[in-house]
Each structure stands twice: as structure tokens, then as C-alpha cells.
């Protein structure tokens, strides 16, 4: 009896211990399918380029490459587009298409590059180009790039010969080549019924292995049609904490880190670049006090943008007067930002009050948590400055999904008071049409209101080409600031990369969305 009880009392402890030890032993000190060993803070990158991203790509599907987390890996590294937009000059440049032309801005003829091979060894021909466009734009796959760039209208496609393709839009489309620059080319055999997590492309690097949750490995493609990249291999990892990404650069564990901010303690390794993102406040004019244009103007006068840029963003950002930064077709260099004039703001509020506007009506200031560095501080500064101007502002910090219900139509209507949304808009396409169509037209997905006059100006600008197009969009931005005032623009932002001393890379405005590994070289 005595023995038996002793045994039974030992049993649970023994069970628990062996279960715990067993689990650990099974692991053999390695997690899941990890293989390599830690190289102990070596700073020399040898032949492998190590990149650390903010998040794991959800998928590497080519027709979702307009998503930052997907595009940053595949665009112009694994896969390539027909036409490429130079992020610095804004000009379209040949990639897998060598030339393109149209007589009527509706049917475009593209000549394709010969001698290009896919990673599976097959040749790139017109059939692949047609299949790529058809799959992304005309299929039922629900590609993100379709919604982002093309909308509901399908494109008519024709294979003229092995290296010539004809693309016809539903109506005149002078920027169709720009739209096509968003499509990354995949082989004809790619599934049209399911999205593909690991695409086959023509890019300078091919995918070797994706260890889900841990890393993506790629290697230089031996049969690449262009210049061979300097690094033979590349590895992507991801860490959501900015300070950890920065630490990986300073400790020599990574060569390039994306999405950093100066608070991440990156020191000399941080390189900032204009990232085409603009921060603005969107005022919904359906209720008081924003139904009075004087109040919307007062908001613009009340915010001290110069000080915000200088104190919160270290003078790297620039004060904004419109929703698109310099470098985007339609940006007006001459449009002045609203000056900071708190007295004028107070006067306008008083004037509106005298005219019967309910200026004490609450303003719900909707802001997305952690959307960009120091957003909470920015929101508090704005709230304070608007309060000083005599307005009642309630700050609502929301997470992404809830914030989106305010960002995109249909907007919530059960709000007590008016809505003012902080929005961060990135125009990566390089043409103002991608901004104004959704932010400023009366029915735009992200536009709270508009006027028939502004809609007409936008329609004219969309159809214009060349210098007329530039002038027409400048007019649109000026008209919004003078007569509509849906927006109070704050700043054009900058991004920051961490770059180790072992490599050399010059970031540009699209580095956050498209990190071309072939442009990275060994530091001299």
C-alpha cells in the first residue's frame, strides 16, 4: 500500500516533467523548419543580401503586387512589368515591352522584348503578356491590382504576333501604359482560377524557398536577360517592431531594413527619402460645423504646419498644399500652403457663429492608431490648435479595420456631430488622376463631398494629355483649396531605410513599395 501511494503521487510530476522535456527534446533547440545557424553579428554580407521587412508578405501573387508587403519583395526583383515608371523622373521606361504607341489613346500596341526567359526556363512571348493582363484585369480572381488601377471595365487583348500585343480600353485612356506598369508578368500557364503564392517571373532573382513565418530565400537567376545582380543570394526576414529592425542593422544581422523612423535608434544607418505619402484632414461637410466653408477654412488657418514638421518630424517632411507631392503629374509647384494664422481662424469661427452656424457642434476627429510615426502626437497637436480656434474636437483613435469604415464610402451616418478624418494618401502611380478621382469627385470612394464644378474640372483633366494634363490637374488642386476646402493638408512625408555599411543603395520614392534588389551593390 505504501509503495503504491508513493508511486501514484510521483506520477503527475513525472508525467508533467516528461511531457515538458519531451516537447523540448523534440524541438532539438530549433524551431519548426529553421536550418541555418546564427552567424554571430558578422557585418560582412558575403554573397547574401539580407533584408528585414515590417511584415511577412501575405502572398507573393503577382496580381496583388500593388500591396506594399507583396510588391516590396516581388516587383522588379522576382517578377517584372511590361513598362516601368522611373520613380525619380516619373517617366515611363521599357522593361519587358520595348516600345508602345497609340493613335487614338484607346488601342495601344506594345512591342515586346525578345530573348527573355522565365525562371522555369520557358520563353517570354506575347501569349504570356496577354495572359498576364487577362488574368489580372478580366478574370474573376479578384486581383487587388484590378481594383486599384483598372476598375470594372475589361480590356480587349490581341496577340498580333509572337512579340506584339494590342490592348484596347473600353474608352479613351491616355494613361493606359502607366496602368499597365502595375502588372507583373507571369507565364501563360499560371492558374486563372486560384491565386498563386509563389510566382514564376522573369526578374533578376528567383524564389528558392519560403519558410512560412521565418524567411524567404531567393537567388540570382542565371539566365536573366539584363545585367546580373551583384549579390548571388538574397534573404528576406520580417520583424514588426521598428526598433528590432534597426537593431538588426546595427548588430550586423541585416543589410537593409524597411519602414524605420528616427525613434528606432538607427543612428547613422538611417537614410531618409520622400515616400510620396501625404497626410491631410478630410472634413465631412454634411453637418455643422463643417457645412459652413468658413469653418473648413478656419481649420486650415488654425494648424501650424511649419512647427509640426519641424518639431514632430525633424524637418524632414515638407508642408503640403495639395494631396500629391512633387514628382507626380499634376502637382502644382506654385500652389501656396495655407498660412498659420490663429487670429484669422478665430475670426472665421466667430463670423460663422454670427451667421447662425452651430460652431459648438462636436467634431469627431478619426485617426488610425500607429498608421505612421508620431500620429498620436500629431493628432493631439491638431486637436489642441482647433480647440484654441474655438471648435470642439473629440479625438477618436481607431484600429485599421474600424478606421476604414470612416475612410471609404459608405460613411457612418449615426455619428453625433461632424467627421474629420486623418488620412495618409500615397500616390505611387505618379499621376494625379489616381488621387483626385477617388478623393475629390462628388462620388469618389474616399471623397466626403464635391461640387459639380470640381467634377467637371476633374473629368477634363483625366482626359487631357501632356502639358494640358499637368495644367488641368493644377487647376483642380487650386479649385479645391479656394472653393471646396474638403481637405486641410498637413505634410508630404518621408520614409526611412536602415542600410548597413556593407552595402550601397540609393533609396527613391518607391523604395517602400518596390525594393529592387538588383540595384543594391557591395559597398566600395
Amino acid at each position, binding site marked *: 500500500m505504501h509503495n*503504491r*501511494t*508513493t508511486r501514484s*503521487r510521483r*506520477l*503527475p*510530476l513525472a*508525467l*508533467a*516533467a516528461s*511531457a*515538458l*522535456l519531451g*516537447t*523540448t527534446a523534440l*524541438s532539438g*533547440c*530549433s*524551431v*519548426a523548419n*529553421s*536550418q*541555418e*545557424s*546564427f552567424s*554571430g*553579428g558578422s557585418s560582412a554580407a558575403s554573397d547574401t543580401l539580407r533584408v528585414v521587412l515590417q511584415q511577412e508578405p*501575405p*502572398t507573393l*501573387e503577382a496580381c496583388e503586387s500593388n500591396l506594399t508587403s507583396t510588391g516590396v519583395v516581388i516587383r522588379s526583383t522576382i517578377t517584372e512589368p511590361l513598362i516601368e515608371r522611373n520613380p525619380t523622373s516619373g517617366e515611363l521606361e521599357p522593361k519587358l515591352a520595348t516600345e508602345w504607341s497609340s493613335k487614338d489613346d484607346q488601342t495601344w500596341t506594345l512591342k515586346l522584348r525578345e530573348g527573355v526567359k522565365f525562371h522555369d526556363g520557358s520563353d517570354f512571348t506575347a501569349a504570356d503578356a496577354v495572359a498576364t493582363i487577362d488574368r489580372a484585369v478580366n478574370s474573376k480572381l*479578384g486581383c*487587388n491590382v*484590378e*481594383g*486599384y488601377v483598372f*476598375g*470594372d471595365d475589361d480590356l480587349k487583348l490581341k496577340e498580333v504576333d509572337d512579340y506584339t500585343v494590342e490592348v484596347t480600353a473600353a474608352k479613351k485612356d491616355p494613361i493606359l501604359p502607366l496602368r499597365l506598369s502595375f502588372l507583373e508578368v507571369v507565364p501563360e500557364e499560371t492558374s486563372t482560377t486560384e*491565386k498563386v*503564392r509563389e510566382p514564376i517571373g522573369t526578374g533578376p532573382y528567383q524564389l528558392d524557398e519560403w519558410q*512560412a*513565418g*521565418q524567411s524567404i530565400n531567393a537567388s540570382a537567376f542565371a539566365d536573366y536577360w539584363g545585367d546580373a545582380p551583384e549579390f548571388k543570394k538574397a534573404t528576406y*526576414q520580417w*520583424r*514588426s*517592431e521598428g*526598433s*528590432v529592425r534597426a*537593431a538588426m542593422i546595427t*548588430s550586423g*544581422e541585416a543589410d537593409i531594413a524597411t519602414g524605420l523612423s528616427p525613434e528606432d535608434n538607427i543612428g547613422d544607418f538611417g537614410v531618409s527619402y520622400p515616400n510620396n505619402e501625404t497626410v491631410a484632414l478630410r472634413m465631412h461637410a454634411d453637418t455643422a460645423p463643417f457645412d459652413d466653408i468658413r469653418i473648413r477654412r478656419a481649420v486650415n488657418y488654425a494648424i501650424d504646419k511649419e512647427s509640426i514638421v519641424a518639431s514632430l518630424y525633424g524637418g524632414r517632411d515638407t508642408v503640403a498644399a495639395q494631396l500629391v507631392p512633387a514628382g507626380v503629374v499634376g502637382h502644382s509647384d506654385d500652389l501656396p500652403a495655407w498660412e498659420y494664422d490663429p487670429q484669422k481662424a478665430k475670426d472665421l469661427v466667430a463670423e460663422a457663429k454670427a451667421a447662425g452656424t452651430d460652431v459648438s457642434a462636436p467634431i469627431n476627429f478619426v485617426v488610425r492608431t500607429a498608421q505612421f510615426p508620431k500620429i498620436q502626437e500629431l493628432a493631439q497637436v491638431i486637436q489642441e490648435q482647433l480647440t484654441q480656434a474655438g471648435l470642439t474636437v473629440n479625438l477618436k483613435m481607431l484600429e*485599421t*479595420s*474600424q478606421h*476604414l*469604415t470612416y*475612410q*471609404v464610402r459608405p460613411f457612418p451616418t449615426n455619428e453625433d456631430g461632424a467627421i474629420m478624418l486623418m488620412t495618409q494618401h500615397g500616390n505611387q502611380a505618379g499621376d494625379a488622376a489616381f488621387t483626385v478621382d477617388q478623393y475629390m469627385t462628388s462620388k*469618389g470612394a*474616399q471623397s466626403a463631398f464635391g461640387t459639380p464644378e470640381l467634377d467637371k474640372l476633374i473629368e477634363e483633366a483625366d482626359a487631357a494629355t501632356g502639358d494640358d494634363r499637368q495644367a488641368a490637374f493644377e487647376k483642380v488642386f487650386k479649385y479645391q483649396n479656394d472653393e471646396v476646402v474638403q481637405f486641410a493638408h498637413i505634410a508630404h512625408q518621408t520614409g526611412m531605410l536602415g542600410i548597413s555599411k556593407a552595402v550601397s543603395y540609393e533609396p527613391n520614392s518607391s523604395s517602400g513599395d518596390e525594393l529592387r534588389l538588383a540595384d543594391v551593390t557591395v559597398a566600395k
Partner: protein
Amino acid sequence: MLTYLRKRIIASALPLVVVIIGVFALARMTGNPAALYLPLNATDTMREEFAARNGLDQPILVQMAQYFGGIFRLDFGTSMRTGEDAATMALRAFPATLQLAATTMIIAILLAVVVGSVAAMKPNGIWDRCSSFISMTAASIPDFWLAIVGIWVFAITLGWVPTSGVVGAAAWFLPVATLVMRPFGTLVQVIRGAMVSALSEPYIKLARSKGATEYRVIGQHALRNAAAPGLTVAGDLTVGLVNGAVVVETIFGWPGIGKLMIDSIMQRDFAVLQACVLLTAVAIFILNILIDLGYALLDPRVRPSAGARKRRKARAAQGPTQGSDPRTPQLVGASMATTESIRGN
């Protein structure tokens, strides 16, 4: 014991079902995922197509029926975010979390037993005060702060271990060291308290007067009786870790289920969220049963089946109907012997 087990399983299965239904319904009440997955300027047609493709256009009860039907076919749906099978994603992430939890708890328990026992030998002695200070601090340091400071000291300044990641044995140091603190601190206090009261029991005096060595007194007699509260608290702490150590997994890029769950919540990736919750709920359910079993085996006073049978037998002895279970006398005998041995060992 089997009756006890059966009762525990039935009692724990109900919360499991409630959790699954709750997660299913609540997740869908927090907003339409279409806005997260489609471009902001997506047209209405695209939104309708998206809803239809993911079955979100069906009434919620139909969706739930389909989901439960899927569970019985072991089909947990497809991730909206990655297009992968949701169960595959959850099962891939879970071992990483289990490994981390197991390693952490083994180290925490071993350390806590040593530190707590030594502290209890001389209550209010210098070592007791020191260990009390250390354990209080360990239990209350925020893990986020500790992780960042750990990276700065051990990875950047000293360069001994990698900042993050899962490659190589050295990568385990920072995540485990960060996670060990809270269970260690909590357990030291529990074990110290239990040991202090165990050491003042008469049977310890008896053991000492019999000339048992101090090692034997502490290790064989006192610690065994102090183990029950330790097991309960350690069990609770393990349950917390099995759920995923979100902060540590996020900071160190540890591909565990906590990070996966948070990502699926933020992205409204319903299928993955449900698969993760189901998996961790089942794991916690099993863990709870093991803890209960361990506790019941460790301390017969909480073993209800034995108690119930004892009462039944007592009633049977008084009344005309005789208990027919042949195991009853044996079990009662065993439990009496256990009680006896605890008291007078």
C-alpha cells in the same frame, strides 16, 4: 478516477463550444473584411464578388452551420490573407509556441523550486528577503521593456546572441529569458509560502527528530506537500503561455500562434482566427485536465470520485442496498492510505 475524468471532460467541453461560437460571432461583428482586402477605391461589383467568394454574403447562421460542418470534415477553411489552408497555418505555428512555453516553464519551475525552498528555510533571513525582492521584481517587469533592453544589452552591446529570429540555439536565449521572468517570480512566492507552512508541520519535526538529513526533510517531505499549490499556479501560467506569448513572439519574430492570432484578428482573417482559437482551446482543455489529474493524484483530498464513493459506501453500509462496484473498497483504501502517508510519512 475515470468518472472524475469523464466529468472533467464534459465540464470543460461546454466552454470549448461556447468559445468557438463566441469567436465566430464576435469576429464577424467587428467589421467587414472586404474593406481590408480590397483596394480603397474598389467598386461595388468587386465588393460583392469578394463577399461571394468568401461566403460572407450568406446569413451568419448559414455561415456558422457551414463552419461546424467543416470542423467535422477537418476542413477549417482558407485564409483570406494568404490563400493557404487555415488549419495548416495554425498547426505550423503552434509547435513554435509549445516549444517556447515548455522550455520557459521547465526553467521557471526548476529555478523557482530551488530559490523558493532555500528562501523558506530561514523565513525573513537575508536570503529570503533577497529572493523576495528578486521574485517581486521579476513578476512585475513588463515583458515588452525587458525584451527591448535585453536586445540592447545582449545583442547590440555585447553581441552574444542574435537580436531576434529562430535560427540557432542562441536565438532562444532572449525570448526564453524574457518569458521566464513572470512565471519564475510568481512561482518563487507560491513555493516559498507553501514551503514555510509545510516546514512548520509536525511531521517535519518528527522527520528531523528521527534524524533525517536536511536534504531529505526538504526534498522528500516538505517539497512534496508544497507541490500542490505550485502545480496549480504553474498550470495557470502554462495555460497563459500556450495561448501564445504575443509580445515576445512579435518582438523576436518568433513564428508562434500568438502572433498568428493577433495578425488574423487585425486582418479579420476569420478562418485562421477560428482555427487558432480552436487549436489553443483544445490544447488548454487537455492541459487543464492534466493539471486536474495531477492535482488529484497529488492530493487525494481533492479527488472527488474517491470522496463520492466513500460517501456512497457509507450510505450503503447504513442502508439496505449494497454498493456493487468491486473497486470501491480498494479505492477508498488507497485514498485512506494516501492521507495517512501525507500525515505521518
